[in-house]
């Protein structure tokens, strides 16, 4: 019996080995490079998106730096549609420098993200869509209150829309103040 087993094993091994000449296809080891998100798409023909609008404005260098630090560039280069309330550099200057510097550190990234996401809502809201007393749900989960008085649109009573730039994936409303989310309960 044992002899028979050995024989069978030998034959089986031979069969297995003889088919080894069938070379198997091997997956390539070529490295898959990640080039970044949609912000990396080379496209100088399309209308600029909200990020490109901000990047193209010399009044928004602080905002752009903050968006990069908060890793929001990829999201905001997406299909949207987004309404971005974009504080000018002057608006950021009203924030104490040490607060701003702290927000730009990696430890405070969640706080920075929270603040910046409070400036974005998912939908493209033109100025004519704003009504007095309107509440807007922002990306960070908190709300903004809109007031419209004599054609002047103010957010949370602190920041006023001073200019509006349409973008491919939404709209950018330039504001003269930084919006601060309500303190966490």
């Amino acid at each position, binding site marked *: 019996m044992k002899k*028979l087993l050995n024989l069978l094993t030998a034959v*089986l091994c031979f069969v297995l080995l003889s*088919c080894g000449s069938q070379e198997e296809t091997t997956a390539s080891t070529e490295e898959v490079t990640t080039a970044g998100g949609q912000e990396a798409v080379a496209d100088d023909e399309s209308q600029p998106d909200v990020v490109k609008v901000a990047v193209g404005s010399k009044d928004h260098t602080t905002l752009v730096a903050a968006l990069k630090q908060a890793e929001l560039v990829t999201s905001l280069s*997406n299909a949207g549609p987004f309404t971005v309330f974009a504080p000018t550099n002057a608006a950021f200057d009203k924030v104490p420098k040490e607060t701003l510097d702290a927000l730009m550190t990696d430890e405070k990234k969640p706080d920075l993200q929270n603040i910046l996401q409070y400036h974005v809502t998912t939908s493209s809201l033109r100025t004519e869509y704003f009504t007095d007393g309107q509440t807007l749900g922002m990306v960070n989960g908190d709300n903004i209150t809109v007031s419209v008085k004599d054609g002047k649109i103010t957010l949370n009573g602190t920041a006023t829309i001073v200019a509006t730039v349409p973008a491919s994936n939404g709209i950018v409303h330039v504001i003269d103040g930084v919006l601060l989310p309500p303190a966490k309960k």
Partner: protein
Amino acid sequence: MKKRSLAILITSFGVLMSMYSCKPKNAGSAVSGDAASRAYVAPGKYDEFYNIVSGGFNGQMAVYGIPSGRLFRIIPVFSQFAESGYGYSEETKPMLNTSHGYVPWDDLHHIALSQTNGEHDGRWAFGNGNNTPRIARISLSTFRTEEIIEIPNSAGNHSSPFITENSEYVVAGTRFSVPTDDANGDVPINTYKQNFKGTISMIAIDPKSGKMSIDFQIKLPGVNFDLARAGKGKSKDWFFFSCYNSEQANTLLEVNASAKDKDFIMAINWKKAQEYARAGKGKKVAVKYAHNVLDEGTHTATSTIMNEVLVLDPKDCPDMVYMMPCPKSPHGCDTDPSGEYIVGSGKLAATIPVFSFTKILNAIANKTYDGSYDGIPVLKYEAVLHGEVAKPGLGPLHTEFDDKGNAYTSFFVSSEIVKWSVKDLKVLDRVPTYYSIGHLSVPGGPTAKPHGKYVIAYNKITKDRYLPTGPELTQSAQLYDISGDKMKLILDFPTTGEPHYAEAIPASLIMKNSKKFYKIEENNHPYVAKGEKETKVVRQGNKVHVYMTAIRSHLTPDNIEGVRMGDEVYFHVTNLEQDWDVPHGFAIKGANNAEILVMPGETQTLMFKPDRVGIFPFYCTDFCSALHQEMSGYLRVSPAGSNVPLTFSTGTNMPKADSATTKR
């Protein structure tokens, strides 16, 4: 107990044997070890070649990447296409108009890419409508069908749309000879020999716009023209056509068209034919054919019925047409990159004859004839033959070429590609295909500048190549690396429809010209709304025109009232986006026609005829944005004679204050 364990042992051995025994040799064992890496295109990387592939019975073209085999696009050409609304939208319906009326589905067999100086220039792809004879031109900037021209005096437009080396002409040859359109067609079918005629049409290509026009036709004996190739280099003024059924059978061609040992390759001096046409040697014949053109400015196609064609008769035009005997119902007819050699592939032949252009010219000069066929001189076979590839395989069909003097011929019956040397006609290598190959393609293979890196097999039979999907299977294609001496199978990929001929072209020639979107300021559609301020709803009798816009993430107008039973509502949807890859769709409940898909900057129209009173929601069908689900609206349909006023709005049609209060 012992006996039982022995039995189990033997049984298990048997099972193991069957599991591990070698598979049949032709079931995929020919894959080389580094195949995966050679066909692998890493995520985010581009393929080296575009492969423009005919879809056969689906009437479309498909665009794949080579070497990955990834499908990028299906281009509707001769068939309605649910994905884009082609042939359904009011703008594209005229593209499928013919002298027979609207033809929603045809059969597209062959691709010809435009050439300059014998090389691909990446501007247009041409395709043939095989059933209701037509030729289409596709822009390789928009990947859209821009033009379709019908071919009169023709049936079965198979030997088409092959192209000359500077895109002067594409050709159309009749597979089915029929009585010409101006003749009485009400004749007994068995009077084929007396009444049926073949024609070759020379369709001129405008060098700037690509616009097609039938320059002239040549009236020929009733045979079946199968395939064709223009000459190149020294033979550039010539065109070569394979013909079968020189027996002129009209029934059971399977037997009756295979009776003779030899049929013909027909050689036409098209330059000379052009001179005859210019010199007034032709006859203007009354015909009826449609010429359909898509205007990129209005995003709208128009169909014009043409009434006349110029026809040349070889009897009035000496030294224009010659026949060369070719064994056994030739199918493929291919010219090598130098233009010196013409390869005929007799489907039923045991050899592949290769003709020499130099010898053809000599035979013509010396009148080395072997009689005539319906008045056309037949050149002596031996006088024009460069040589025969002996015993190459069974059922040779088509030949492509590389840049090293080699030819690659597909063999349907023996299911293989055979590589052979054009110069000395020696067989160098052969590989199996899975299964029963038809056409094959080498990038640049039909041009004067082949790239010779790959050959792609387009097979007719798929059987067990992929996971089964019921009786209807996808078609299989195989990619072989031909950069070395031996052809190596590196990829097997499924294709849509049934691929016949295909061409592959370096990506660099096309991708730089690819259009990203249509500029809204250049949109000249008569019903465009170039901004939401231009949106409106206009009643003209029972026709209601909705000038609608789409932009992330709303339709304007999105509330429409005042439409009545008996109205025809035309939704002219303009996509206001000026951003790459942001189409919007449009659909409305109960539409009997279709849906539409609108590219950025474009206007497309869906006609809707309400069948009942009520509220009809409409919405964007392309997931365009985060608020895509919000991109919707309502149409109110009232009874005929209703006095509900025609109103339209977006964002302002709010509930009345009192009713809102009551609800709460």
